[in-house]
């Protein structure tokens, strides 16, 4: 942190100013003149919260993607299919058992198993051939997409939110002051907050496991030099298998989250694949904190963009990617 400030004083100043402006926008009561130009504060806050929670969802998808890439140098373009697969599995589980939490377990296990099959039968055989692996994942994503279209049809599925998460929560942000002097507090759906909290917990847990545990040490060593690691007697193929399963499982779980937030349908696989791509390009390939930062930025850009410039929301996301590529091609938080 200190080194960054010493090295880039101007950038640090810029980032600090942006953070302060943002905090003011969130916490202050907007003066009337400002509201006239910028629209209602409630709309802005809603967009920000939507962006942050969407960022949480993107993080769940992208962190698995970036973890797999970091260790195995495998750009898994079938990652979106794993997301969609998890979503369908979650939907079926909720339909059969009625338990929302259990559907996460099922989606995680199902996607992880699919990931294990892919890693064991396909990617293990073409280790080190980046381009060929990528082409194979494209082929697999086409096959999986069509199989799922065959089985589940082209309908939209929405996963039912459990009763204990339905309804709004009051947030500590004042959106407006009534003429009586009473402050109006913002309300926001509990389920989104819960899911965001869960993705933060998962992110922190991943960071802890990677940086503070034996298995994390092995994975980090594998990222740096897998030949050396395997010559030290670590069963590297098993580590690959576990990491792939975990990354795939996360994507599957994210499918349930996405199915509850929005809906799942054919085409969502591409959408979330694109989101993960942009998130990891912005954040830095193979970096978990990078995925978190990228997901937050992209989620915010998408939601704020869709409120303030509806037709150009996609372009905004894309512009962020272009700017990052132009000034820091390896991504914001890459080593």
């Amino acid at each position, binding site marked *: 942190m200190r080194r960054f400030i010493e090295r880039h004083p101007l950038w640090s100043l810029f980032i600090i100013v942006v953070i302060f402006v943002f905090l003011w926008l969130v916490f202050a009561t907007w003066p009337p003149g400002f509201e006239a130009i910028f629209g209602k504060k409630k709309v802005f806050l809603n967009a920000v919260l939507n962006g942050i929670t969407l960022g949480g969802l993107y993080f769940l998808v992208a962190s698995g993607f970036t973890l797999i890439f970091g260790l195995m*140098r495998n*750009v898994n*373009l079938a990652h979106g299919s794993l997301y969609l697969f998890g979503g369908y599995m979650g939907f079926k589980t909720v339909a059969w058992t009625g338990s929302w939490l259990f559907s996460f377990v099922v989606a995680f296990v199902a996607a992880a198993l699919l990931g294990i099959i892919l890693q064991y039968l396909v990617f293990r055989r073409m280790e080190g*051939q*980046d*381009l*060929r692996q*990528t*082409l*194979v994942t*494209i*082929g*697999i994503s*086409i*096959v999986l*997409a*069509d*199989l799922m279209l*065959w089985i589940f049809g082209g309908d939209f599925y929405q996963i039912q939110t459990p009763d204990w998460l339905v309804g709004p929560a009051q947030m500590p942000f004042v959106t407006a002051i009534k003429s009586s002097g009473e402050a109006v507090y913002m309300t926001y759906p509990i389920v989104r907050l819960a899911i965001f909290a869960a993705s933060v917990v998962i992110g922190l847990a991943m960071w802890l496991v990677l940086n503070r545990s034996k298995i994390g040490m092995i994975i980090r060593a594998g990222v740096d030099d897998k030949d050396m690691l395997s010559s030290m007697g670590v069963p590297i193929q098993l580590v690959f298998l576990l990491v792939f399963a975990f990354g795939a499982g996360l994507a599957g779980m994210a499918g349930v989250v996405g199915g509850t937030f929005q809906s799942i349908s054919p085409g969502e696989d*591409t959408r979330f694949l*694109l989101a993960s*791509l*942009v998130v*990891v*390009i912005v954040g830095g*390939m193979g970096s978990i904190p990078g995925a978190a930062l990228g997901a937050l930025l992209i989620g915010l850009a998408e939601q704020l963009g869709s409120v303030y410039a*509806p*037709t*150009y*929301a*996609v*372009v905004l*996301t*894309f512009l962020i*990617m*272009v700017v990052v*590529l*132009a000034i820091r*091609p390896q991504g914001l938080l890459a080593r």
Partner: protein
Amino acid sequence: MTGIDQTSLSRSTSLKLFGYHPVVIIVAVLLLFMPLIANDFILYQIFSWSFMLGIVALSLMFLAGYGGMVSLAQMTIAGFAGYMVAIFGVNGIASVSIGWPWWLAVPMALFLATLLGTITGALAVRTEGIYTIMITLAIAAAFFYFTNQNYAIFNGHTGINRVATPHFLGVEWRSTVPFYYLTLGFAVLCYWVTSWISRAPFGLALQGVRDNPRRMAALGFNVNAHRIAAYVYASFMASIGGILLVWGNGQISPGSVSVDVAIDNLIIAVVGGISRPIGAFIGALIYVVLRTFALDVLVAFGLDGNRFRLLIGIGFLAIVFFSPDGVIGLWNRWRNRHASVSTVRQGGAHG
């Protein structure tokens, strides 16, 4: 992806006629007189489509095969050129039609699309290898979502229909036979120019950059400039393909630039083989034939006719698994095996 054209060197010279292999001459004569043999359906649905898709795939083959850069944005550039021709020219949507004659709209579209391709390339060359795939895929997807949302320029989800096709020299170029010759002409032109460039100093330098960028930089070549120049040429070619596609279809919509289409373009190039320009057209022919007849064949075998993409996906997987150099690789392997048993088999490990 090694070697430039080792196979043509090893080919026996005794069979050649006017300096061409007899197979080449037979194919050329066949293509030239195709309208006498084939009906309209075959001419348009199979051949014109193969030529148009082949041109776009050729632009990808050029980048991937000679430059080592797999760009998934080539179909996007083609689509952008198509959109520009539709918008600057005459079309059925009054709100987005500018109404220029075709001889003004076409150069404009070529210029703008090549510009887009150059910018894409300038961004993509900042990274290498698989990163290029990801960035160009992101660009392709962003353009698709943008056309879907934007009504002011691209007319959103419905796209643009009733795009006017040029009518000059007393020929309506949209009708089947003239359109066949139009697409054939441009396909041959693109093929010929690409083959020529691959042997010209620029093409050789580009292949040097592909094989060892550091050594080429040490020799004084500007690596990034060569890569971007490759994008300029490939984008120009893709734009030609895109304009032909929009004339052939008479309409363009976000579906024409979707991620699936961009990936299909990659499939065409890879299935054909990205080591030689002819691969793009072979791949396109296979793809178009499959797409046209898959439904009938699947139904004939008692399967669901909608499973076309499954068939394409499995076919693609099989090719990537068994012959990374596509159909050309299969052909080379087959010939090498027959030519002499002692020769080392080629076309395996790279890709």
